[in-house]
């Protein structure tokens, strides 16, 4: 079974994990330009989203930014 812990909640992927972080964001409909991503506590820079492969059991934190300050 393919599972990712996304923002603390386990999400099961019945038809397999998205191959990369970029693919996961696309599947979740998250804009890559306004999100900060950590995989297992490690920051992943925007330029690495396409290259970062995902594995079952990983903990992913996605911080989405909305404007205002």
């Amino acid at each position, binding site marked *: 079974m393919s599972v990712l812990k996304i923002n603390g909640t386990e999400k099961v992927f019945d038809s397999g994990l998205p191959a990369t972080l970029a693919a996961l964001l696309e599947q979740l409909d998250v804009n890559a330009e306004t999100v900060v991503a*950590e995989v297992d506590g490690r920051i992943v820079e925007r330029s690495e989203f396409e290259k970062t492969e995902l594995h079952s059991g990983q903990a992913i934190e996605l911080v989405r*930014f909305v*404007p205002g*300050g």
Partner: protein
Amino acid sequence: MNEFYEKLKKATVGIAGLGGLGSTVAVALARTNISSLVIADFDTIEKSNLNRQQYFINQLGEYKTDAMIKNLKQINPQVKVEGYKQKLTAGNIPEIFADADIIAECFDRAEQKKMLVETVLAKMERPVVVTVSGLAGYGRSNEIVTRRISNRLIVIGDGESGTDLDMPLTAGRVWLAASHQANAIVEILVDEIIK
């Protein structure tokens, strides 16, 4: 109690952006007697800023950085303030905030917020970053929360209320988020960073 104030005498905090969040965080930290602030904003004060930002009518047109240095001196002349009037980029952030123990992300645009947080976490070894997402509108005070995402990342806000949803920025709600920031900064400095 003494130990608390002694620790703050050794602390340096960076503030990226001096709008509603940044100007309010700066005022709160100066009043808390933080030793040293590094503040940065390239913008000047406009009339529309005065509904929530810590400036005055006679400062319209001044650089926010210059005006804030003056205002902080009036509040607490003991605080050392270093000001930068250039636009913050992934290239200059590590240098400008090199001495910071902790950095407050106080930008307006979502892309800029992301850029700062990513730069601090990826290009700098030490500082914690306290960022905000979701503070627009009014009411719903208790939806603004402080969350520890990881060792060096704290996120404040409701995560959803952006100005892109045609919500106004109101002093009360912006200051709530800024107060969460200032409060988290003091907590992390005293309990974790300063020995």
